[in-house]
């Protein structure tokens, strides 16, 4: 961990605080309403707002989780810092790809 990674880690963390609060509130709302695929997709399809919200969430979580996983690998696994960084970057890319795909799946018709 150095100052550059630190800044990105803390910045994405701060950005995600409101995103997480909205997401958890949404979960509470959805469970009260009763979850159906039609109900979810009816709200998300064609919605720029949902695309922006969850798109931003996916990007920030990919960066944040990537840096976090890097620290854990460097400290708790036999990998050295450079290889921990490579593996963590690959994981971040995985989250980014799967996450944006999921956003596209619920927003695009």
């Amino acid at each position, binding site marked *: *961990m*150095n*100052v550059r990674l*630190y*800044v990105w880690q*803390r910045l994405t963390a701060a950005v995600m605080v409101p995103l997480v609060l909205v997401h958890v509130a949404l979960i509470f709302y959805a469970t009260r309403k009763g979850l159906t695929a039609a109900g979810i997709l009816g709200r998300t399809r064609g919605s720029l707002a949902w695309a922006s919200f969850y798109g931003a969430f996916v990007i920030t979580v990919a960066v944040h989780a990537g840096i976090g996983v890097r620290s854990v690998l460097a*400290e*708790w696994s036999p990998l050295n*810092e450079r290889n921990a960084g490579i593996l963590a970057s690959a994981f971040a890319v995985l989250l980014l790809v799967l996450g944006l795909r999921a956003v596209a799946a619920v927003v695009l018709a």
Partner: protein
Amino acid sequence: MSDSRSGLTVSLWRGAQQGRYETYKVPLRENQTVLDVVTFVQRHLDPTLSYRFACRVGMCGSCAMTVNGRPRWTCRTHVSSVAKSGRLEIGPLQNLPVIKDLAADMRPFFEKWQQAKGAFVPSHTRNDDIVPIRPDSAARVAADAAIECINCGICYAACDTVRWNSDYLGPAALNRAWTLVNDERDSATTERLQAVAASGGCHACHSHQSCQELCPQRLNPTASIAALKRRTMWAYLKGEI
């Protein structure tokens, strides 16, 4: 099983990195410190025991060892406060190579001190006027709050981030770097901030706070490191490092 009134059962680490705990019976006395116990073993039971001490009164930090899983100054640890049912387990400080028995090799600790630029770099000579430093200036108050470190190594031994990350400079070195960053007379601030902003520097700290909980001088390396994080973050964002 030992009866605490008849004596102490003391397990001491013997060997180097490889070794084992050996057990000794030591008479229990009133007002006995852990250092007294170790000294008794060496003088009366086993002269081959190696250990380190100097002042015996809690000023030098030389006698720091791991006592029942916790790094402490043995000269300031009363047996009555740590010996559970008459048993003590004493080993060298953790996170450092073992020279022999209870003596740890402090060289990595001091090497990291240097790496953190924990040494004062003067900006004036004896021919210049003395720099007036107000003791109540914010910078001096911050430096004074962290300045009483005697390099005993307890924080370093207690820190799990030191244990898990061999690059990590550690709480004592970073705490000292923070005092120097606050010293107006010092001229190496940029190099020092670069040193603590690199991999293994202050940003590796996870704020476990074992250091500030165990420091016998009641210093707070966690707070010093947090301040370094802020300082280096702004320096980085402003392009200074």
